[in-house]
């Protein structure tokens, strides 16, 4: 495995933190001078975090998340409500995220990110869920990046019976590729997400990803298939993501084939279920009409 062992990494991080705390200069304000503009930004702007948060410390690779974790109604004209992360957390997590490919979803990545952003190494304690917030940052930024990528992929606006299904596969594959840089750390991230206190938030993120993919693929059905489609896509995506953590093929070819096979099976099962339902409804209405034609008053 190319990633360094977790034990030595966390021991190194703990030593680094201890050194910082005990050194008197760590108590001085080099961190506070860069905290001030951020706190000012935090108090004055709650709704437009992505435009006014000071970004002097990091090159923006992905936009700061602006939508909250549960959004039952999406408005096209009203500004989006504040995202799941405060501006301070966003700065810190964005800086820490750049260290994830080398240090994993760990306290050392958070500490290095805090240092990059100009904070004290102890600053990650302001992030409420610790390393899970870093995992959540990855999930949220990758999900919100799908909208821009879908515009790039589907700009031609083709129509057809299987367009939605092919777009779902394309979007799911795009999202899986978003894991490519952190795939070696992803099993650790899954273990973090599986902790009982974080399971609800993780499952919610998976559900929101499935909803985002179906919406961007152009699905407009609002009958019970709304639920079955999202449930099946969540299961398929989670399985493909897990498969990808052990995939050594070039360009994650095997994962792409795995995804294609699972989506094919799901659509076949959907066809079978729809055919059975249609047959039952036709038979029932034909039976009722036969009885009516015989004079039965129904």
């Amino acid at each position: 495995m190319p990633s360094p062992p977790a034990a030595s990494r966390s021991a190194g991080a703990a030593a680094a933190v201890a050194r910082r705390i005990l050194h008197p200069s760590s108590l001085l304000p080099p961190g506070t001078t860069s905290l001030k503009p951020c706190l000012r930004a935090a108090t004055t702007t709650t709704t437009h975090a992505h435009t006014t948060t000071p970004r002097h410390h990091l090159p923006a690779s992905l936009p700061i998340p602006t939508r909250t974790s549960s959004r039952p109604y999406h408005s096209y004209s009203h500004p989006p409500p504040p995202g799941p992360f405060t501006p301070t957390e966003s700065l810190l997590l964005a800086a820490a995220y750049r260290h994830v490919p080398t240090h994993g979803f760990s306290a050392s990545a958070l500490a290095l990110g805090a240092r990059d952003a100009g904070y004290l190494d102890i600053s990650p304690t302001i992030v409420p869920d610790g390393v899970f917030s870093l995992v959540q940052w990855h999930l949220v930024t990758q999900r919100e990046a799908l909208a821009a990528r879908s515009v790039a992929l589907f700009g031609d606006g083709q129509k057809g019976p299987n367009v939605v299904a092919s777009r779902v596969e394309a979007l799911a594959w795009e999202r899986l590729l978003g894991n490519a840089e952190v795939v070696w750390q992803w099993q650790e991230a899954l273990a973090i997400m599986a902790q009982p206190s974080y399971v609800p938030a993780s499952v919610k993120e998976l559900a929101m990803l499935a909803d985002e993919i179906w919406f961007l693929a152009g699905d407009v059905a609002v009958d019970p298939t709304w639920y079955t489609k999202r449930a099946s896509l969540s299961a398929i995506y989670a399985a493909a993501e897990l498969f990808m953590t052990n995939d050594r093929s070039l360009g994650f070819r095997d994962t792409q084939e795995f995804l294609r096979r699972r989506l094919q099976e799901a659509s076949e099962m959907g066809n079978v279920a729809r055919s059975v339902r249609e047959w039952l409804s036709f038979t029932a209405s034909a039976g009722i009409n036969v009885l009516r034609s015989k004079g039965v008053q129904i």
Partner: protein
Amino acid sequence: MATPHAILRAANPTTPAARLVPRHVSILLPCSRRHLSSTSRAAATPAPPNGGTSADNGTTTTPPKPKNLKPLTPSQIDFLSSALRVNQAGELAATLIYTAQTPPVVRREPHLRPLMAHMYEQEAAHLSTFNALLARHRVRPTALYPLWSVLAAGLGWSTAVLGREAAMACTEAVETEIGGHYNGQIRQLLEMVAGWEAEGYDVGDEFRELIRTLRRIRDEELEHLDHAVEHDAQKAEPHWLLTGAIRAGCRGAIWVSEKV
């Protein structure tokens, strides 16, 4: 307070048979009014050419001022999503009630076929309106969709088998509840709009359009209520029992669909 159907009946004392002629064509969907526009196509201003960066275009037309819209609060968002969800469930139930009621009622009284067809078409249009709204605003449909489908079809069929008066009483009960329900939603939306205007914010077209749509649909539902009462809904035998039970069921279904 005089009921809507009484006011309308007092204003238009025509015979029931004449009412079957589509007098209500004039209050059908607004898209029919577009064909009556007096502006000729040639007189309408053509769209500016693509990539028109020439100076003569820029100075005459100013770009529309960006609207200052307040972000929606979580309670407003919850209200909007549950309102749209309940409305879709209600229109689904209405279409299924009419589908199930039509064969038994029309078998006994064939002259009611145009009325039943007209009411069904309006409900189907409402359902597709709400389906489009739910898909556009990413609101989830009610999880009890199959249950409401079965119950609505069962209600429609059983009241139709009891007789035309019972079928009309069912329509009367459902439309009374639905009319009150839409009124409450419109009132709440208007309160939201008044609150924004009082705070100095603009109101987006999204909300004005939503209020306009809900008003139109409420008016069409009250029109159905009017038809039902004209066709002897009040003469159904245990009228108090039928309408009481159906209205209570509607209120319960609305309450559940808002949550689930």
